[in-house]
């Protein structure tokens, strides 16, 4: 009996039952056995270990047929095999029931067992997979479903339908769902990717689901530039009508907060509103981009990504590195040059602050992963240990990239707080699985030979900053877009992958092309976006924008960031926060690092800057935020201080109406409505103490969503 598999291994496929490599292993992945949470975890589960998603079938053959004295398979009575009993829950199974009678998968396993559990390598290898349809599919309520077939091509020229063995997934289950047989079903208006994996091969296609035409008659606001044309094209496909322009009041508050991080002062609002120049919005954006607050505010965003804090780079390092960032934004340093300076930095971190890049990236793995995440929008860390399940990046690619950074060296010198980054001229990285040294590798190029001039990183940086590089520009314009619009075209912004497609690919491509062909000019991109109707649209939605969170049909209201909020409270009360050890007048949106330990900022999600992930900045509302605003000492003290705006106004002989007017301008950049004036007048008249009454008004204003949010 034991000899049979070996003998049969030489016979043709139909005699040995299902192929272990081409059917059993993909099946175990499809039904979840070899997933990372189950037996595919590094230590397996309950003593049974499979390679993650079947990447190592040879090892899996061993664990299935040999380990535990072979009791997982019973060739004589297949149904007594643990391989059948466990997933059918005939014996206790922590993973629950994954197979039931009648399942295709069950039949495969039974046949494989009955035919003697051959683990012979198939004669013809799989060379690729394809869908049986075009790369994009349109669905609508009257045509809501489609069955996708996946075909695998083998080295002997044959092709087979592997749909029942392939793993399907949807990038957005709200838009389109897919079941195990490849049946896709439209669920909601939108655009999503369906990815499929079979063995190590994957593909994805786009599915658009939209109701049948209903918006032809609706009035569409005019596009103001290229951005709007591309946004509208996508919205038309999805039958969503965009919102019109926001008011000047909304625009001035929005533009100040987005471009320089601060609320406009009441004077600034009053200067802007009455202007009749049709170009006044465009001019305001230009003025804001020239201000030093612009550079400081955008340096703060990059400080988060580059982990600028004293624990990472020391106190002196914080000042120098933050200064370098501010200068880069103030001089509008081209982004390719900015990237080069960071990635090729060497020398003392005190004299060449960009070298701190390799101080925060403490080793070769960290430098590889950080660089991929920040500049390529790729979260590569999974590939350190295994191939990405649905993606093109492999473990080999990881080490190919890492080889560029392997020779970066770090040493201390006599100056306290300094670290010297230097490049060794030798040293190879070994692949953990093969133990062999890995050559530096680039997508589309392959292995890279070392050049005579030494610095290995140069080849990587030349490739990354080349005009035709697909990553650098797209990732940066997407980041800028997300800062301004509140959501990336690719979201999360550092997770570019085929199974996470851009919500508007043409828009992303246009922005990236424009960025590349105009010298990687970040201010230009900011102008392009902020001068669009899309950016300037109202936050109000209509019934024709059902649940659009991704396609930019309206402005996406969002909470102010921790720093913006603290500055806004300071500006509203005329009591800006002082930060010990920093120059007078430094705003929270201009802090070089989070080292000041502000309870308020922490509560509102200021990141500690321990990772290069944008997601470290918490944007979720929490209870402590609510308590800080409603009952916190900082807010209370600023509202009730005798030096603050409310005291000044109440004691300044100003009328109730004038005070209300100014408070509204300071908080919301708009005048109060008649009804609001009335509400406040009634409130004031009921209170004995006018000062207390206006403190209450101040409290209510800054606790309102109109203050807390950008809209």
């Amino acid at each position, binding site marked *: 009996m034991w000899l049979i598999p070996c003998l049969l291994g030489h016979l043709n496929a139909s005699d040995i039952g299902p192929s272990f490599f081409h059917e059993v292993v993909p099946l175990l*992945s499809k*039904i*979840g056995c070899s*997933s*990372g*949470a*189950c037996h595919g975890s590094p230590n397996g*589960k309950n003593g049974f270990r499979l390679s*993650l*998603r079947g990447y190592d079938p040879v090892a899996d053959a061993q664990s299935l047929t040999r380990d535990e004295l072979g009791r997982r398979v019973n060739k004589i009575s297949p149904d007594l095999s643990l391989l059948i009993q466990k997933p059918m829950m005939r014996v*206790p199974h922590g*993973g629950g029931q994954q197979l039931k009678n009648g399942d295709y998968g069950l039949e495969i396993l039974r046949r494989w067992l009955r035919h003697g559990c051959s683990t012979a390598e198939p004669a013809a290898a799989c060379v690729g997979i394809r869908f049986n349809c075009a790369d994009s599919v349109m669905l609508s309520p009257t045509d809501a479903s489609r069955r996708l077939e996946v075909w695998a091509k083998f080295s002997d020229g044959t092709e087979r339908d592997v749909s029942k063995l392939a793993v*399907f*997934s*949807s990038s957005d289950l709200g838009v389109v*769902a*897919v*079941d*195990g047989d490849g049946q896709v079903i439209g669920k909601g208006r939108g655009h999503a990717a369906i990815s499929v994996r079979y063995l190590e091969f994957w593909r994805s296609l786009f599915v658009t689901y939209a109701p049948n035409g209903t918006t032809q008659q609706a009035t569409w606001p005019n596009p103001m530039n290229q951005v709007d044309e591309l946004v509208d094209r996508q919205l038309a496909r999805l039958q969503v009508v965009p919102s019109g322009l926001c008011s000047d009041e909304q625009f001035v508050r929005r533009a100040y907060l987005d471009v320089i991080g601060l609320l406009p002062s009441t004077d600034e609002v009053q200067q802007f509103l009455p202007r009749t120049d049709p170009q006044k919005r465009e001019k305001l954006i230009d003025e804001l981009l020239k201000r030093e607050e612009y550079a400081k505010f955008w340096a703060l965003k990059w400080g988060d990504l580059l982990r600028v804090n004293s624990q990472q780079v020391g106190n002196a390092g914080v000042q120098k590195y933050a200064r370098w960032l501010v200068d880069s934004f103030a001089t509008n340093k081209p982004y390719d040059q900015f990237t080069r300076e960071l990635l090729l930095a060497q020398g003392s971190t005190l004299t060449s602050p960009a070298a701190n890049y390799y101080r925060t990236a403490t080793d070769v793995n960290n430098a590889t992963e950080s660089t991929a995440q920040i500049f390529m929008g790729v979260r590569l860390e999974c590939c350190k240990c295994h191939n990405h*399940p*649905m993606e093109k990046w492999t473990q080999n690619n990881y080490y190919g990239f890492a080889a560029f950074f392997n020779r970066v060296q770090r040493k201390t010198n006599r100056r306290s707080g300094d670290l010297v980054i230097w490049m060794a001229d030798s040293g190879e990285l070994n692949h953990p699985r093969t133990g062999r040294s890995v050559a530096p590798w680039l997508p589309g190029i392959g292995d890279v030979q070392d050049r005579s001039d030494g610095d290995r990183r140069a080849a990587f940086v030349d490739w990354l900053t080349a005009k035709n590089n697909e990553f650098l520009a797209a990732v940066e314009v997407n980041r800028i877009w997300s800062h301004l619009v509140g959501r990336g075209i690719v979201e*999360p912004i550092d997770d570019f992958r085929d199974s996470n497609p851009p919500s508007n690919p043409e828009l992303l491509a246009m922005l990236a092309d424009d960025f590349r062909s105009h010298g990687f000019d970040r201010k230009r991109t900011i102008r392009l976006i902020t001068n669009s109707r899309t950016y300037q649209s109202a*936050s*109000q*939605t209509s019934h024709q924008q059902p649940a659009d*969170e991704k396609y930019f049909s309206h402005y*996406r*209201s969002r*909470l102010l960031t921790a720093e913006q909020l603290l500055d806004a409270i300071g500006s509203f009360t005329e009591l800006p926060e002082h930060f010990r050890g920093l120059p007078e007048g430094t705003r929270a949106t201009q802090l070089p690092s989070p080292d000041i330990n502000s309870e308020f900022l*922490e509560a509102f*999600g200021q990141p*500690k800057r*321990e990772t290069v*992930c944008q*997601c*470290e900045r*918490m944007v*979720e*509302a*929490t*209870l402590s*935020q*609510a*308590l800080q605003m*409603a*009952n916190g*000492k900082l807010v*209370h003290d600023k509202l009730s201080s005798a030096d603050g705006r409310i005291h000044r106004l109440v004691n300044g002989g100003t009328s109730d109406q004038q005070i209300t007017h100014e408070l509204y301008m300071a908080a919301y950049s708009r005048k109060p409505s008649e009804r609001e004036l009335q*509400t*406040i007048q009634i*409130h004031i008249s009921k209170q004995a103490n006018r000062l*207390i009454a206006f403190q*209450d008004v101040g*409290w*209510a*204003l800054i*606790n309102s*969503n*109109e203050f807390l949010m950008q*809209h």
Partner: protein
Amino acid sequence: MLDTKDLNASTETTSLVRLPPLLAQRDVLRVGGISVAATLIPQSCRLHAAGSIGTVDRSGPGKAKSVIFLWMGGGVTHIDSFDPKPQAPSEVRGSLEDIATNVPGIRFCETLPKLASVTDKLAVLRSFSHDSDDHLLSQVYTLSGRRINRLQLFSEPNIGSVVWRTHGPRSGLPGYIAVPGVTRPGPPPHNLFVGGWLGSKYAPYCLGGLPEQPDFSVGEKLYDPPAKYEEELRPQSLSLSPDVSLSRLSNRQALRDAFDQALRTVERQDQFQAAEAQFQNGLRLLHTPEVRQAFEVGDEPSSVRENYGRTKIGGRCLTARRLVEAGARFVMVDYGYDPDYGNIWDNHNAPVQNHPPIQQMVFRGYHLAGMDRAFAALISDLSSRGLLETTLVVFVTEFGRTPTINKLGGRDHWGRAGSLFFAGAGIKTGQVVGQTDRTASRPLTRPYGPWDVAATIYHLMGINHEDFTADFQDRPRPILDEGAIIRELLA
């Protein structure tokens, strides 16, 4: 993907169902009368199949509804408390005697007379052991249940954070509350009460107390300090300023609601709704008498106060009981590093510490004597209120102390052996688990580490420690990297 219908279907046969991420963020759902804990499908699992994955959790629903985690940072001496060695040489044993407890055969050190009278309600673990003598590492070991390195001091979530993430808040109270959450080991002072990779929103809600208050333990070290030195444990964030009464707060709220009419159109957006929900939650906390009342230990009858002791540790334990009674899910009593006094449990007796010899110090109200009184009162109080059946009480310290008393009359760090206790829901009490050698230097029985303690707590809270949760980047993370349920402790 599960929709609600699927969820109903799958809960008929399973008690714990993995939910899709959107649902998992929310509180425990009640579906058809069965509590569905919001564990998560890890990313890897979600990617693998489009169909629903209803996985049974082997541990089933937890026996404990609440946890009181008595976290004594600094390293409580085990020989002078739960693991006396009357037969050991005098440099180990010192001057203290052992005493009988109310369970025949179990003896404690004479420092714990009150706990000795409730030993039938305790399960003492004498084989607590791990590989570190370092405060910070072992404190994070015990807080997180993970064997971390120095770079992970702040990156791993506390046990309470995982419980909060999994089960959500309850009764309007945050899912993990630290009383008072001020312990800051160092130098420099470090805050180890973190949500780590779960995100800062899962860091414990710390009552904080008042940092400037005078301390009863400075000056005359009284066993029973006078009431005027009681610790203020009302959280500052819930204490209204003298000039803001509740009625003024209501006025303000009414005004705010009127203002917000203008923005009604954005209400549909998720972030807006979440922020609004938290705001209402916060104001409810401020307004709800029952919740605010939970912090008013002053409302307790004087006799109850005396039972716990009018000490910091007494007040904290009493607050913990009041919080659990008000519905809190995971409460940590944090005691050890005192802003006024320094390191209470870390009795090296280095000259700068200015401690009396450890075996005298143990009788002071802020040391073992106060702990004995407070813990015993907590156990009895929970028991008489019927709360002990649903509340798991765990006494944890990061390590024991050196068997041999040092030249200065103190004891140093000792990761190899220490004593903890468990009580309440799901625990087989009136027993000692594990045994150390004749000098209490190392376990003779199977050693149990902080990961085993954490696995046991998770198990009793209905969380399978071998499961995965998701971090703030939505990547799968194992609940624990290692560890096993300490079966001997279970009823």
